[in-house]
């Protein structure tokens, strides 16, 4: 059997940051499809560099619980875990490394679930809210790709990408969309510093539903906290490089 190694960012300052990774690990342990389910973090323990200490499984699949394929998945995780790429053979152990959960196309289904749970109707707009960055365009492309998949589902009047840290900015979303109700789905792993604190504050949200100038803004929990993310993780692990 295979050991699943879930890796996350974690935080030195926010205890909630790693909660989704622990929750998904617990779910996957209960399902029993893996020999073991390990967790490791950049900023918590076990660290990325030590999380496989003592792991004797012949086959390990490492799945990054990150939203996009960027600096952490390309540089930090491989370096800290001493991975050679999608496949590492070390001390009789085969370690396969997948893409991040946030870039898996099935995540669009989780975004749609989040929106529907927040009461999204066919006439509403879905704003897929990403962090964005001026350094890493792959992060931006991923948010646009997810918004495109939500739009292609045909379940909502509009769907598009808005960003915390680049254009089109989240503060302008009522100009980006025409629908009377905009459902904002944060494409983040956790309801941590940004999704849980800075974004609701910057958007002057008053809870799950806020009225602004005759329109309604609904704000959902972060995509990464949705229980169905465990199925995305299983799918990624199953499709890991042979």
């Amino acid at each position, binding site marked *: 059997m295979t050991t699943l190694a879930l890796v996350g960012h*974690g*935080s*030195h*300052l*926010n*205890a909630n940051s790693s909660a989704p990774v*622990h929750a998904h690990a*617990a779910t996957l342990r209960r399902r029993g499809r893996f020999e073991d389910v390990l967790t490791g973090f*950049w*900023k*918590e*323990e*076990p*660290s990325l*560099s*030590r*999380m496989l*200490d*003592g792991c004797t499984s012949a086959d390990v699949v490492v799945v990054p619980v990150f939203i996009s394929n960027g*600096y952490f998945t390309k*540089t*930090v995780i491989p*370096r800290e875990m001493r991975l050679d790429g999608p496949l590492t053979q070390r001390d009789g152990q085969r370690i396969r490394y997948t893409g991040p959960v946030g870039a898996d196309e099935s995540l669009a289904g989780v975004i749609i679930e989040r929106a529907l749970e927040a009461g999204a109707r066919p006439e509403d707009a879905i704003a897929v809210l990403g962090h964005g960055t001026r350094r890493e365009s792959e992060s931006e492309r991923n948010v646009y790709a997810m918004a495109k998949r939500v739009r292609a589902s045909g379940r909502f009047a509009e769907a598009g990408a808005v960003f915390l840290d680049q254009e089109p900015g989240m503060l302008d979303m009522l100009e980006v969309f025409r629908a009377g109700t905009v459902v904002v789905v944060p494409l983040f792993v956790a309801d941590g510093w940004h999704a849980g604190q800075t974004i609701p504050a910057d958007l002057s949200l008053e809870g799950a539903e806020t009225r602004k100038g005759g329109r309604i803004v609904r704000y959902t929990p972060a995509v990464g906290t949705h229980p169905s993310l465990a199925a995305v993780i299983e799918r990624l692990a199953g499709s890991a490089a042979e």
Partner: protein
Amino acid sequence: MTRTVGQLLIEDEAIGVPGAANRTITGTPEAVFAHVRLGDDGRYRPLSGAATLPTGWSAPLGPAFDADIAIETVYPLALTHQRQFAAGTLRVVPLEDVLARQSGRYESSAVLSEEGRARAAGVVCGACVRHPVWNGAACAPEGIPCPEACSVLVAFCREAASWQASPPPPEPPDPRIPWAAFEEPGNELRERYLQEMAEAHD
């Protein structure tokens, strides 16, 4: 038989940390993990080995939550590293290698001087129950060996590197400031370091 690992007291039927209170925590990894995330002062504990475990609680042991699972819940990899250290198979990584491989936000940690690294390790590791064998520290069989500098120490080295040229003046420690907010004046570890730095250069 009673024994201790770090701050954890392990008895035949329960684990916990003695204290004035006498709270019973559900004997599951999830419940105990959630309980030890915060110290007595309510602050988040990002470093599992920090000597700030909440006190005055115990959790019953049983077949699904035995002493080994409990110890690994509170101190991840502690037993693995104990076994590997005893067998001479523990992969030990020196601090200079850890700092040299950093990039991005933490790349600047590598410019911290030898003196600064030693002081940083003294301050951060001095607040932790693990024994930094990466630094040549001794570790008794019942102790928890630490084979490699953690991310908290790396983050501290980054801040300390920024203080090298022009150290900020020490300020009174403020226990309300998050444990690992090293950039904030009043952070206890920051102030301990700056105080030692000032005394060394007097």
